């Protein structure tokens, strides 16, 4: 038996891959992958399309990639009550499994969105899919349900009729969700093992679509810290206990989500505010504030010492991550919901109409070098991995890749 178990463990170890993109904006939430090399151009149907699959239902949630599997969520049905989690082989786009559930909470939303607005997240072994109806579930990577939690069923007034969008995070075996609206509002830490509530924190009863982020702990053995963001500011809580460690007022975005490098947090507040995270458990100092780097509805991303945002007018701004000084601006086309991503020296920004703009970052100033019409609305932030970009539109999921 020991030999068998050893073989199983060995198989589990060797099956992990460094190319995972396990949550909205990637494992480190920077939205960038320095080693990812994408083709210079592609088309929606042919050129450099490794595969393209049709999706049942739709939703602005981002795809994630775990262990060679691309996982997406969608919703459809008469009242958008059918919630779907789909898994495709990253290699050939074959659908490996699909699991369907009924929303148990409110599914009302603006026609542009659906309850599949929050992005799923993975710890490498499981997928935690969260929906705007406040339904939260855990599946293993083979599609076996581990647990299901109807937070919307438990809190029937949770939800706003524009639609909910906050994505969960997972850290220290705890799934952290943020459910803030004009009805029942709370953040909760859910035991990733069995779906039970570890902690429950009442929150402001105002609409908020921003997602929590994970602040890394500097000392091993310390409890991890989750940072909650809303119109009041940010609140740092212990991810295991939910104890509030510190708060910073002054307001923060209710749509776009902050990011952290571990040493610093780029908070979407007063434009962009950078915090020094010497110890995430202690209230940090402000390093700089830059109102010109306000990201509006898209979230900031970080790459090679520069921070990138897209403002409400569709202008891409590049700032110095150390000082907040604005380096350059570039007007993009159209309206955006999807946060851009950066692969190597290419920033890919996709507007709502599905126009993908490839911006070359290698010069002194960004330059649009390619425009690709994907042919359908796109609200989902793409995923990167293995020299490929996974783009999710209203009806399709693409893998775009160069030579394999």
């Amino acid at each position, binding site marked *: 038996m020991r030999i068998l178990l050893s*073989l199983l463990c060995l198989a589990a170890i060797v099956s992990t891959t460094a190319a995972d993109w396990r949550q909205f904006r990637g494992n480190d939430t920077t939205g960038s992958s320095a080693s990812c090399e994408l083709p210079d151009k592609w088309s929606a149907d042919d050129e450099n399309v490794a595969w393209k699959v049709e999706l049942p239902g739709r939703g602005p949630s981002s795809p994630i990639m775990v262990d060679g599997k691309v996982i997406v969520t969608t919703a459809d049905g008469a009242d958008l009550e059918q919630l779907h989690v789909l898994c495709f082989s990253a290699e050939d786009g074959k659908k490996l499994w699909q699991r369907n559930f009924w929303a148990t909470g409110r599914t*009302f939303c603006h026609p542009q969105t659906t309850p599949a607005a929050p992005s799923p997240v993975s710890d490498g072994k499981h997928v935690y899919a969260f929906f705007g109806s406040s339904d939260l*579930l855990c599946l293993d990577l083979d*599609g076996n349900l581990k647990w*299901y939690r109807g937070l919307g069923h438990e809190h029937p007034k949770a939800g706003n009729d524009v639609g909910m969008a906050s994505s969960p995070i997972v850290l220290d075996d705890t799934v952290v969700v943020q459910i803030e609206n004009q009805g029942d509002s709370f953040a909760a830490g859910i035991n990733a093992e069995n*779906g*039970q509530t570890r902690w429950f924190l009442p929150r402001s009863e105002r609409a908020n679509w921003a997602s929590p982020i994970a602040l890394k702990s500097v000392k091993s053995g310390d409890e991890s810290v989750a940072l909650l963001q809303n119109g009041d500011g940010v609140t740092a809580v212990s991810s295991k206990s939910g104890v509030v460690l510190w708060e910073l007022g002054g307001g923060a975005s209710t749509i776009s989500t902050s990011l952290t490098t571990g040493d610093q947090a780029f908070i979407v507040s007063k434009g962009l505010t950078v915090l020094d995270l010497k110890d995430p458990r202690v209230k940090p100092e402000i390093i700089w504030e830059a109102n010109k780097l306000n990201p509006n509805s898209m979230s900031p991303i970080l790459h090679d010492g520069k921070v990138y945002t897209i403002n409400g007018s569709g202008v891409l701004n590049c700032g110095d991550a150390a000082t907040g000084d604005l380096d350059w601006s570039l007007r993009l086309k159209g309206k955006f919901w999807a946060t851009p991503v950066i692969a190597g020296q290419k920033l890919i920004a996709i507007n709502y109409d599905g126009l993908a703009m490839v911006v070359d970052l290698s010069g002194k100033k960004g330059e649009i070098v390619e425009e690709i019409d994907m042919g359908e609305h796109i609200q989902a932030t793409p995923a990167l991995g293995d020299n490929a970009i996974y783009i999710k539109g209203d009806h399709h999921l693409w893998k775009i890749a160069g030579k394999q």
Partner: protein
Amino acid sequence: MRLYQSIAAGIAVVLSATPLVAGEAAELTQKINAISEEALGYPEAVKAVTKLSQMNADAIPEVLAAMKQDRPVAANWLRGAVEAIADKARQEGTPIANETLIEFIETKTHAPKSRSVAYHLLKQQDEEAAKKLVPGFENDASLELRLLAVDRLMEDAKAKVKDEQKEEAIAIYQQALTATRNAHQASLIADALKELEVEVDTTEHFGFLKNWHVIAAFEFAKGDGFDAVYPPEKEIDLEASYPGKLIDEIPAPAKWQPLQLGSGEKRVDFNKAFAPVKEVVGYAVTTFDSDEAQEVELRWGSPNATKVWVNGELVASDKVYHAGDNFDQYTAKAKLKPGENTILVKLVQNEQTQSWTNVWHFELRVCDHLGTAIADAKP
């Protein structure tokens, strides 16, 4: 590397293969149905769903049958298990027999949710066999299945229009309208019938109440007006007048006035009845005659904060301002007595000043648990 993975996968299959033991599925589904809203029983349910998911296709009917309409969270656990079992069985070339699924679908005593899942399992393995069942769903208790039958009727009607068989098309569209409980489908059908020169009153179809008395404007009281008790909450006296908020647009005192909706109208609009003003409280009252004592659902929508009373009993309180306005946005169960019942709605307009908050209205209907309109029994 592949060798290691193959060996590991093979061993995993051997270790996990669990033959079905009669009665075992029942014990496992009971554990899942025992989970509570306080997240109790979850560790036991985690073990149960893992074991269930490893069973063979013979277990599917038993797991489906355990789905209960009043346990929506547990139903999702069971759906996850059933889909995993069915997936594995299909991949192994041993899917559940079509006949078993068809028998399950046609047994109306099973929960609508479970029959819908069974239908989709059938569709995955034999689309043609599934299609044949659709016409039988026209009056189904499963609104998911009924939706399919109405879609099919609409397709049939469209084909008749194309073939210039107008009378037949009208008849089929009207059949579809009678069957549907879905607002989107009803709207499409009404549009199609209008093209065929047949007017449809969707207000009547869905049972929106049309005869109201409305009164305004009471003081918002810096937000406290939602909780403050104004005279209409204490007594309904349609002849009375009360001190109102002192604003130019609605001179005091506040008095009841009739408001009647016409064909196709469903919105009780205070902006039209009074004036587009902010920071005010209004009420609407109506009577609904019931043939018998019965439990009904009140369903309403409003962009404003609302409270609803039936015969003086508060049935719902939603302090939500300008977050949207949807068909059947809010639902509350209510008990009607035989004869006349009073329905009172409080409609609170807050202090927000954006242009899109300049709305002050609601719509309300009385129906059964499927959304079927219950008609007012007034002569």
